């Protein structure tokens, strides 16, 4: 903004040209938005098309509105999608809790407390930031299986245990960065009032870290809701399936008749993420900034 404003001031003829440039810019942007959003509209349109129209009518809008796809999709398999949604919601919400609590504790230690080897542990934590989850999946599977947790009484433990142990280094890092922005004078003041490390955590850091906690909660919900790899590996019984794993059952059933229901369930599965997006879009967009750049 300031760039245009100032250059415009130095060159008298600029304003009118800037106005036209702005219009061109807007047209280009709208065109790109249309291309980018087209797949989403197409998905929604297809989800309410009849089987016949899915093959013949390739436009965005259906000629006959067919909401029946949602009904058919919901009960397309032996268990209803309601079950899969509940499973997904449970895994995602518990992951949110696990990440928020465990990452906050670790971040407080890194950001505020002095202890031996802190620098080393911090470097290790940063190192795990870029550690691909795919590398660990085989041995984790073996370990959890040998503990009887894979396909066990409650098959979500292998998905959830890591989340309660702050293994999502991204969130630890994000919170450390955030806490460094909290003025140390507040700690000192609390210390003078007789607070120890726990008191400072409870009365200073915890209440002031709410924005970072919210960002963590939103991202861990969305990532877990969308996650496929780990859920595919660790969930083996239909009744335990989460939404993404259940959706792949549609691909297995090669019959053409399932396309409409498949799209309907795909749309439904994206709905929670989309609602989060609507509610928190500013925070989401800003969240990736704070995490990566504003050191």
């Amino acid at each position, binding site marked *: 903004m*300031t*760039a245009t404003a*100032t250059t415009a001031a*130095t*060159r008298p003829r600029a304003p009118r040209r800037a106005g036209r440039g702005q219009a061109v810019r*807007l047209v*280009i942007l709208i065109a790109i938005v249309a291309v980018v959003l087209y*797949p*989403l509209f*197409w998905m929604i349109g297809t989800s309410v098309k009849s089987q016949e129209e899915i*093959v013949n009518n*390739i436009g965005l809008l259906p000629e006959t509105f067919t909401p029946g796809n949602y009904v058919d999709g919901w009960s397309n398999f032996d268990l209803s999608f309601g079950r899969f949604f509940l499973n997904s919601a449970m895994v995602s919400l518990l992951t949110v809790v696990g990440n928020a609590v*465990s*990452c906050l*504790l*670790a971040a407080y*230690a890194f*950001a505020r*407390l*002095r*202890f031996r080897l802190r620098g080393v*542990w911090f470097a*290790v934590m*940063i190192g795990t*930031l*870029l*550690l691909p*989850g*795919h*590398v*660990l999946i*085989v*041995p984790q599977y*073996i370990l959890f*299986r*040998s503990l009887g947790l894979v396909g066990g009484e409650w098959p979500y433990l292998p998905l959830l245990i890591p989340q*309660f*142990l*702050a293994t999502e280094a991204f969130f*630890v890092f994000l919170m450390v960065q955030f806490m*460094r922005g909290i003025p140390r004078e507040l700690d000192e003041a609390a210390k003078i009032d007789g607070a*120890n490390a*726990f008191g400072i955590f409870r009365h200073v850091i915890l209440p002031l870290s709410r924005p970072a906690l919210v960002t963590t909660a939103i991202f861990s919900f969305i990532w877990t809701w*969308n996650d*496929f*790899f780990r859920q595919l590996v660790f969930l083996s019984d239909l009744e335990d399936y989460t*939404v993404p794993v259940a*959706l*792949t059952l549609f*691909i297995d059933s090669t019959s053409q008749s399932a396309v409409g229901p*498949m799209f309907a369930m795909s749309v439904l599965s*994206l709905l929670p993420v989309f609602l*989060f*997006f609507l509610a928190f879009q*500013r925070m989401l*967009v800003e969240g990736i*900034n704070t995490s*990566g*750049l504003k*050191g």
Partner: protein
Amino acid sequence: MALTTAPGPTRRDTGSVRPPAKRGAGRNRHGEGLAGYLFLSPWLLGLMAVTAIPMLLSLYLSFTNYDILTPLSEVEWVGLANYERMFTSDPSYWHAVQVTLKFALIAVPLKLAAALGVALLLNRAWRGVGLFRSLFYLPSLLGGSVALAIVWVSMFNRDGAFNSLLSLFGIEGKPWVNDPDWALQTLMVLAIWQFGAPMVIFLAGLKQVPTELYEAASVDGASKVSQFWNVTLPMLSPVIFFNLVLETINGFQGFTAAFVLSNGTGGPVDSTLMYTLNLYISGFTNLEMGYASAMAWVFLLAIAVITAIFFSTGRFWVHYSDGEDR
């Protein structure tokens, strides 16, 4: 690996925290050390149980013929056989490496170019910016899901939206996702479609470029194009570097869309056999977990080497201006 992969801020951050540490350490230094480890304990436990021990276990298993069916106590040590097989007698392994490299080498630069291009278009504060920024970011939130992969495959199938678009121009399409020459490209398009996340980071970087530089450049008579090359790009190079490292590493790990497109096989004719998909097939379809562990370790080393290369070449083209960090 820990140090080589640490992104830019680390060294600075640990440094900036240390000085105040001496002040006010005083009497309860001992208690604070204890408290530190107490607060850190979930993370430490996770590091050991979920990261370090599994890594060591997989290193050990990579020298065995372990399949999940025989008990761990009866595995057979096979030395370097898994690695030998990988490098000398498993054509599908090399194929997966090629597919993954091809995917990353094409999709990542295009995705970053799209991100930078749109960021430059958006880099003016006017009323619509927030809305556009959010709309462009939406695919990054949805794109990694199974649902979107399903949509994508349908879109590039025979009756899909892409062919209907082509037919408007009189071009006859084909089922792209079933064509070994094109299936991977459809996945690249899906990756590029998610340019919003790096775009947001570019936008934040563009905001940091001091306007005085543009003023000075335009006083010197520099054109918009030369301002882009001589001011914007150098000033943005740390952000480009950050995005490049992040997106490359992400690109190597593409799994979901390839799984959905090929129903977990890597087809058609192995054309979408991404490295992680190949690893999954070895470990969880063929149950050759020793072999899959060897693959995982080579993958880890490859990523570490590539990251190290990025960081060592970075100093030749990444321009850090002094004091910008503060």
